[in-house]
């Protein structure tokens, strides 16, 4: 992904109002604009998955409610808090990298990865508990959706670790440190967080 570093001046930098006095840079798309194609495309694909789920859910609400009652809302909340915190540190990492403070940026990236790993551990725990309780992928419609949505999100998160790896690789080498790449990778990580926020409310809270 180092190729993007030489991409030259980014569109949207010139002729835009400054960033509302927070000391952040003037108007610009954070990272490669290309990454936003992935963000918006995945957002639309997930919108479709969610719509299918909600439609079937409200059409068979008794089964879904009964199955939903076996989920542990505390674990879901813990997951959400972990990912939100990881996003906060990812933002810290970007802000530090932007200011040229690469050591704090590296620390923030590592904390992000650590919180993400916490999410993975909590998710696997939840899955193991459910499977031991006799609720598998094929148990019923609710669990099919549950394992599908959490599973595909899990996969996105695993890709997120590769992405954090790219950030750490960029920050460690004095010759690299492409601000654009760090921001691009951060955008991906926030997308994973964003999708989880939606999945959490749709699987655990919706009645």
């Amino acid at each position, binding site marked *: 992904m180092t190729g993007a570093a030489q991409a030259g001046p980014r569109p949207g930098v010139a002729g835009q109002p400054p960033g*509302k006095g927070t000391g952040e840079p003037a108007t610009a798309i954070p990272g490669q604009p290309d990454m936003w194609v992935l963000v918006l495309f995945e957002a639309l694909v997930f*919108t479709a998955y969610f719509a299918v789920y909600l439609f079937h859910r409200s059409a068979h609400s008794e089964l879904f*409610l009964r199955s939903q009652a076996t989920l542990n809302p505390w674990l879901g909340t813990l997951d959400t808090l972990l990912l*939100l915190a990881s996003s906060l540190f990812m933002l810290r990492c970007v802000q530090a990298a932007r200011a040229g403070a690469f050591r704090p940026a590296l620390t923030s990236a590592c904390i992000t990865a650590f919180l993400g790993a916490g999410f993975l551990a909590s998710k696997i725990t939840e899955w193991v508990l459910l499977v031991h309780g006799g609720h598998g992928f094929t148990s019923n419609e609710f669990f099919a959706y549950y394992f599908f949505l959490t599973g595909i999100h899990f996969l996105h998160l695993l890709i997120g670790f590769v992405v954090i790896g790219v950030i750490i690789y960029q920050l460690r080498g004095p010759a690299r440190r492409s601000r654009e790449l760090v921001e691009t990778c951060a955008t991906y990580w*926030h997308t994973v967080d964003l999708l989880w926020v939606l999945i959490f409310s*749709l699987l655990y*809270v*919706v009645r």
Partner: protein
Amino acid sequence: MNAQAKRRSLTTWLILSAITLGYLALDRSADDHGAYRASSVVTTTAILLALVKARLIFREFMQVRNAPALLCRLTDLWVLLIGAVLLGSYFTGLAVR
């Protein structure tokens, strides 16, 4: 690093976490002594809160607020779209059951 930016991100995170914890209360409100009951109010609130969180993540964490207007509009459009689609499919499902 700018202190103001730092404070701002921390505030965002606090709001997001507070909404998340608020879900737990919402979670209880619909239940009948532990048994889950269907509730359009809870569903609608949950979806709307999720959209508020999504927009906050876009604006603050992903820094869309500093991005060109096109990206702001696209992300807002998506938030509106998913809100309409989610509520629409939920209520259509209720109607056809």
